[in-house]
């Protein structure tokens, strides 16, 4: 019998079953659903790509990144601006530097540009950030998030400033968003199975021993960080083109919290965990949001106050951290 090709064996890995089946099912659901449900599905898929990207970095390196929303935000703005028709841009951003004013690319190229911009930011900030672990890394990446936000919020000539950037267009479809999840899952899986991924995992288990074995910890982390940032930037491009209006508030601590909740609720260590966490957090969030807006089941009416969704998700995250620190699927799935 012929030996299976290595790439084929990798693609047929059972560890990929849930991470690949989930986005496909979601896309199918999104195609037949009402428009408002379709929006939720697209949101879930876009955030799923970001969480998978986070898993690529944090899952293998064990280092928490709180700054991926910065990459998402950067990607959203880069893609929105570079794909926007010139006339509309003139109206929206009259002070745009002339060098940028006439650049316009197609939608697909704007996604690549977004990924590139995020990767460059990661490449510039990474060499410093990657020297840190644990809490210091969490705080330093948090600082990068704040810095990026401050710049985007105040660079009015290019980003529209604290006001919303409208007229971005809502071109992201479920298929597009699902496609990015599949790409992100395959890239993450390939990275985790590569020698770089395996070495990085060794640094997670015992950094000192890994260093003693000659592994360049900072460089490996940087590699994972940059790839992860590029995926997050592309996801940001899709997110911007799903929102249609870019508001700096949409990319703040709230989104950071949602992403962290998705990553940790499902389980940091596996792709299955990342995907499951996304679905669970989105489902619970939507249920609570429905209560916020008022629901009726026959005679029982329920109307909750605004803020209920965030409160419920925070409670869920704390309970998971207390009861199942490895996440819902942690330990059950082979890495």
């Amino acid at each position, binding site marked *: 019998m012929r030996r299976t090709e290595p790439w084929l064996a990798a693609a047929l890995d059972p560890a990929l079953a849930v991470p690949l089946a989930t986005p496909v099912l979601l896309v199918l659901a999104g195609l037949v659903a009402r428009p408002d449900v379709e929006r939720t599905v697209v949101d879930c898929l876009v955030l799923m790509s970001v969480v998978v990207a986070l898993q690529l970095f944090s899952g293998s390196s064990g280092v928490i990144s709180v700054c991926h929303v910065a990459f998402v935000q950067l990607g959203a703005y880069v893609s929105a601006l570079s794909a926007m028709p010139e006339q509309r841009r003139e109206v929206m951003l009259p002070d745009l530097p002339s060098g940028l004013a006439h650049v316009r690319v197609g939608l697909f190229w704007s996604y690549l540009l977004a990924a590139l911009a995020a990767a460059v930011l990661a490449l510039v*900030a990474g060499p410093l950030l990657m020297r840190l672990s644990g809490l210091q890394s969490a705080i330093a990446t948090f600082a*990068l998030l704040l810095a990026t936000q401050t710049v985007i919020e105040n660079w009015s000539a290019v980003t529209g400033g604290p006001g919303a950037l409208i007229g971005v267009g809502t071109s992201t479809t479920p298929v597009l968003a699902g496609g990015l999840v599949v790409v992100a899952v395959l890239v993450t899986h390939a990275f985790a199975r590569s020698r770089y991924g395996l070495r990085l995992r060794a640094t997670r288990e015992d950094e000192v021993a890994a260093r003693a074995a000659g592994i360049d910890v900072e460089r490996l982390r940087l590699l994972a960080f940059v790839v992860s940032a590029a995926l997050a930037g592309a996801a940001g491009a899709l997110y911007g083109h799903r929102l249609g209006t870019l508001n700096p508030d949409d990319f703040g601590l709230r989104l950071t919290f949602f992403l962290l909740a998705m990553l940790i609720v499902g389980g940091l260590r596996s792709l299955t965990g990342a995907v499951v966490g996304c679905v669970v957090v989105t489902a619970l969030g939507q249920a609570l949001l429905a209560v916020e807006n008022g629901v009726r089941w026959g005679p029982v009416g329920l109307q909750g106050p605004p*803020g209920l969704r965030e409160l419920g998700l925070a409670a869920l995250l704390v309970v998971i951290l207390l009861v199942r620190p490895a996440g819902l699927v942690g330990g059950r799935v082979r890495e």
Partner: protein
Amino acid sequence: MTTLLQSLVDGIGVGGLYALESLGIGLLFGIMRLANFALGAVTMAAAYALYVARDLPLGVAVLLAVGVAVLLSLLLEAAVFRRMRSASEAALFIASFAIAFGLENLALVVFGANTRSFSLSPWLARSSDVLGLRISHLSIVTLVAAGTLLLLFSVFLRRTEVGIRLRAAADDFEMTALLGVRAHRLIALAFALSGVLCAAVAVVVVGQLGGVSPGLGSNVVVIALLGAVIGGMDRLSGAAVGGFCVGFVLSLLDSVLPLEVRPFRDAVTVAVVVGVLVFRPQGLLPGGTLTERV
């Protein structure tokens, strides 16, 4: 000249404010490696307590705020952090982040998103001439309160037995526990003290803003956390000095920087923080015993 002096006085007031919050962070970090983002939520809860008690005499309202902050801190310790003793620093930080986020939204549920305006006391809003400077009563109160609390804390930590135990625990928790100090009580005490500090911060911030909104605490705690990182979270004085410096510099930059650069002030600050983390990860004033061993 007077404007410069004026900004210096304002800066010292703001610095003192952040020093209090950073001291709270340092207290908990030294003992249980918890960088408590939830202190912001505790501050916010104390501020809402002041709002609820706005018709009572100021002294009673402040006592109530202290009570709420201390109780909430102890509750968080008993319900969450006591069960996470063996968790990693990053997991603790994320848990405290989730708690802060949850409590902020709880305030949103209970009180709504709008700022609830009220005045602690009309006297605070006025100002007097001191040596040719117009100094608001609020900044005098801030200075006196921050100075007194920092002094009391330093006397308590240096001269009393409990304080010395607390410092020992902040320095080397396991060793202190082995030497027969009751660790759990000490941790609860540290949480209660951080609650007191939060309440003090809440009084000053409410005085400055003239109201309370759900986001009140997180603005304070972000800066205090960065300050504690810069100063060094392992030593109490390091954290407090770091918080003071960040608050002081931010306040000074606000009046010194040219208008067009001012919005980017925070970006500069966080860049400094990243620099400190990279080149002096233990902070500018590190504790003595924290060298990571294999």
